[in-house]
C-alpha cells in the first residue's frame, strides 16, 4: 500500500484578522498545499529553541476554492499554543502545518442539501468553511446555520454571515446567545433546545444532512436532541472540540 503522505509544510502568515476579543484568523500561504474539503482540519506544530514541540489541531475556516488556508484560533489564556498563534504571530512569521486531515466531518457542494449546521462557539469554524464553499461553488442547497455564542461580541464572522444570509440563495442563519443579549436582539437567548431546532431547522421529513461542532457537552446535547426529534443518527455528523491544552 502506498502511503498517503501528510507532510509537515511551512505556513507563512500573510494576514491576521481579529474576529472577536478572543479569536483571531490566520491567513496562511502554505507551500505545496494539496487542497482540502470543507470541514477538514490541520495540525500545527511549534518547535521551541530547545527542541520542545507542541502540536494542536485546528479546523480550516477557508473554502477549498481559496488558494490561501485560514485557521481561526480561539485563545485559551492559560494555553500553551493558542496565546502565541492568536496573539503574537505577525505577517511573515512561519510555522509548521500538516493537512488536510479528516474526512468524516466534510461536505462537498455536489452532495447537495438540505443541510442543518449547528455550531457552538469556535465550533462554527469548520461550518464556515462549508458555507464559504457553498457560496464559492454557487450552490443553492437549502441550508440552515444555527450558531450558539456566549455573548454578541463572541460571534465569529458576524458580518460575513449577515452578508451570506442576505444573498437569497437558500441560506438562513439563526443566532442564539447564552450569556445575555443586547437591547433589540433579534435572535434567541438560551441554549439550543428542541423547540429552537424545530423552529429554525428543516423538518425531519426532509432528511437533512446534519453537522454539529463545538465543545463535547454542546455537541452531545444537540445530537441527543436531534435523535429525539427523529433525525436518523447516521445523518448526524458530529465533531467534538475538547480541552487540548490550548
Amino acid at each position, binding site marked *: *500500500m502506498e502511503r498517503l503522505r501528510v507532510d509537515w509544510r511551512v505556513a507563512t502568515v500573510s494576514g491576521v484578522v481579529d474576529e472577536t476579543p478572543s479569536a483571531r484568523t490566520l491567513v496562511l500561504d502554505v507551500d505545496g498545499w494539496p487542497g482540502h474539503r470543507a470541514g477538514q482540519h490541520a*495540525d500545527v506544530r511549534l518547535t521551541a529553541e530547545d527542541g520542545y514541540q507542541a502540536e494542536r489541531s485546528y479546523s480550516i475556516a477557508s473554502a477549498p476554492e481559496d488558494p490561501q488556508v485560514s485557521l481561526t484560533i480561539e485563545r485559551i489564556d492559560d494555553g500553551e499554543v493558542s496565546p502565541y498563534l492568536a496573539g503574537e504571530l505577525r505577517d511573515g512569521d512561519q510555522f509548521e502545518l*500538516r493537512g488536510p486531515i479528516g474526512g*468524516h*466531518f466534510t461536505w462537498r457542494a455536489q452532495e447537495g442539501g438540505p443541510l442543518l449546521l449547528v455550531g457552538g462557539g469556535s465550533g462554527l469554524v469548520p461550518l464556515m468553511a462549508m458555507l464559504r464553499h457553498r457560496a464559492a461553488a454557487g450552490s443553492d442547497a437549502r441550508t440552515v446555520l444555527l450558531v450558539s455564542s456566549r455573548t454578541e461580541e463572541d460571534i465569529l464572522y458576524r458580518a460575513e454571515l449577515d452578508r451570506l444570509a442576505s444573498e437569497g440563495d437558500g441560506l438562513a442563519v439563526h443566532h442564539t446567545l447564552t450569556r445575555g443579549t443586547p437591547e433589540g436582539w433579534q435572535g434567541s437567548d438560551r441554549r439550543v433546545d428542541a423547540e429552537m431546532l424545530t423552529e429554525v431547522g428543516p423538518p425531519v421529513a426532509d432528511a437533512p444532512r446534519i453537522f454539529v461542532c463545538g465543545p463535547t457537552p454542546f455537541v452531545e446535547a444537540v445530537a441527543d436532541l436531534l435523535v429525539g426529534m427523529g433525525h436518523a443518527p447516521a445523518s448526524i455528523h458530529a465533531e467534538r472540540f*475538547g480541552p487540548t491544552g490550548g
Partner: protein
Amino acid sequence: MRLDGNALAGVLVEALGTEMTEAPRRCQSCGAVNPVGAHLLYQGAGWVLRCPACGDVALRVVSLSDQHVLTFAGEWRVETPR
C-alpha cells in the same frame, strides 16, 4: 472529556498512510456499524476508541517517541485509491 474519532485522524494517517475516519467499522460486541469518525475517543496514557453504540473497545493507540502501536478490534473496512 471524550472526543470522537475525527480527533484521531492525524495519528491514523501518520500510522496507516490513509484517511480512516470515513471507514465503516462493525463492532465485535453489538454488531453496530459506524464510521470511525463517529466513534467515541478517550484519552489517558494513550487513546482508546470505543463503539458509539455499546462502548466496547474499537482501537487502542499508544504513541511512543519512535512509533505508534495500534491494537484493533472488530471489522474495519477501508477503501483506498490504488
